């Protein structure tokens, strides 16, 4: 995964301010795009929350099956986590505005993470 691929996703969806590609199994963010000044601690928190919500190593945190997508909506922010189809511990972690076109964004994010393999 290249930063340019993440930047293309942000260009396509201006309501998305940050995209990171991470290994949620180890909790390591590999590459990110968007907010260049985001502190390392914030990325670590994002990665930990994604691991918790998506579930690591094929173990669901909630429900019976590991989810391919998880969304956490707050009043002013929507976090979108998209798991890679072929690498269950690889995921895109996205921070978006509440008004984002969620359906369109999920389709594009899926293409970004699976298309990069």
């Amino acid at each position, binding site marked *: 995964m290249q930063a340019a691929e993440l930047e293309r996703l942000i260009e396509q969806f201006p309501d998305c301010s940050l995209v990171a590609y991470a290994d949620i199994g180890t909790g390591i963010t590999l590459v990110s795009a968007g907010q260049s000044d985001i502190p390392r601690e914030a990325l670590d928190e994002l990665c930990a*929350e994604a691991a918790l919500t998506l579930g690591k190593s094929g173990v669901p945190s*909630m*429900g019976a*099956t590991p989810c391919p997508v998880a*969304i*956490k*909506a*707050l009043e002013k922010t929507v976090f979108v986590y998209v798991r890679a189809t072929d690498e269950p511990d690889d995921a895109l972690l996205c921070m978006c505005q509440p008004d984002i076109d*969620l*359906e369109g964004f999920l389709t594009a994010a899926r293409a970004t993470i699976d298309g990069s393999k």
Partner: protein
Amino acid sequence: MSTGQSLSDRIAALAEETPDFEGRARVLAPADLETLLDTIDSTVLPCALTFDTGTAQLTLEVAGRRLHAVKSVGGDLTASDRLIDQPLSMDDEILRAATAKLLKTFLDDATTLTVSISPAAADVLDDAESLSVATLREDLDLGANDSALPVFERFQSRTETYMTAAIHLRDGNLVQTSGSVAHTVSLKIALTTQLAAFRDARNKVSKSHSEPSLTIFADAIESGISLCLATIGSEMLISACTTPDISAINKVFRRIV
């Protein structure tokens, strides 16, 4: 969910009902928008529903509790060609507004309303590009009378039609369960075996755990069925919904909080 029947129960009931209903008409009373929307909301099999007020006719293609297209209008009713037979999408605000206006106009002077049903040719049951009844109610402003309700109750009432099962908790205590038995069982398993650990872990990693939040775990119950966890103050709603509805549920949450 509002009828207390599971989706499969409703499909089975409608499958039995359809042959008797075909070619016949039912009188719906009262002839109002709620009645019309309730009819759409109880239609699971792909059907063309023709509503007739005596002076105007409206035929809608309906499936899976959603409105897929306006097929035709007749009598005193007129509509733009751009609306007729066009696939309706929740995200197409122009078509949504035109549809809402048409439904309202259709019933302006109605005293009686009959509905007849015929099988739809199109296989639209799995088509996600359609309008849910909850969205139509929003567009018709039928949800506006709940503005005095607390935030959680508004969220609950406006998402009810998206959910196949739900469990409501207040201060951690069970308030109500409703909906599909199978999905309620899945929710109870998640509630008793996973929720406490999930919340504890989240409280450790996240600074935002006290804010109103909606967390959606796509396809977590089974393929096509997602798990939603809404927390607003001391209220919590853990629910199951079909995966295409997660965007709509998120939109409701965004409007409410």
